[in-house]
């Protein structure tokens, strides 16, 4: 899994690619929590290039959201481009719990950037 981290307007973007599943979700969780430990509270998780998410991926997203909101921040998600990979977000109603956008720039704008 390749990730790109960008810093802009005090908002951090992390963009995992490919599969996020029980096998590699702990790596993504560690990376996100390292950012939160460093004081990042406004986070964009750009899932555009993610092709598969399981419930372990959902757990990573929820834990990030809870920590960010506890620090008066937020996590915004960018929808996967592949329609098949979007289904888990609607079934779990994550599309209502998270602010979800079609692009990282839209997510940045939603943060007021």
């Amino acid at each position, binding site marked *: 899994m390749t990730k790109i981290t960008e810093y802009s307007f005090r908002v951090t973007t992390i963009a995992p690619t490919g599969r996020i*599943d029980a096998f590699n979700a702990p790596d993504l969780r560690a990376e996100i929590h390292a950012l939160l430990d460093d004081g990042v509270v406004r986070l964009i998780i750009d899932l555009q290039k993610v092709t598969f998410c*399981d*419930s372990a991926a959902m757990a990573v997203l929820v834990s990030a*959201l809870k920590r960010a909101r506890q620090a008066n921040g937020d996590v915004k998600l960018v929808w996967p481009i592949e329609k098949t990979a979007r289904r888990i977000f609607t079934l*779990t109603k994550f599309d209502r*719990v998270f602010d979800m956008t079609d692009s990282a720039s839209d997510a940045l704008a939603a943060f007021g950037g």
Partner: protein
Amino acid sequence: MSSNPSKVEFNIPAKYSDLSSLEERLQQFITRHIQYCDDQSQYDISLAMHEICTNIIDHAYGPNQIGEIEISFSLCHNPFGLEIELIDNGRSFEFDSIIAPDLNEPQVRGYGLFLVKQLMDEVTYSTCDTHNKWLLTKFLPLHTSVD
């Protein structure tokens, strides 16, 4: 391998690292035996099977037990569909005791079996002295078997 040409049986180690290859086998079975299965249905079946496997790894075997998952793919008829059977030799649990997650309150755990029930048309779980068995069924709209 089974003598039934439209049934495939195999075992995999109960390890996360082996699950992506399992999905490749599922895709091969669908390509070979099912003339029409849209991308979303194929993805949904794959995700449901994956969630059952992670449940077996996490809960039936747990971190300290090495085990295997016995898997079969087969076709069902009237109505036509795909059946996936998954058998483990780990601990059993009370299937009916699983509580659906509160979808208005995000939580870290509890989505796996909820997803399976949403993604598949039928989900059954049975247990006996020697093993636990999951049977997942997905009914498919156009039903011409290639074989």
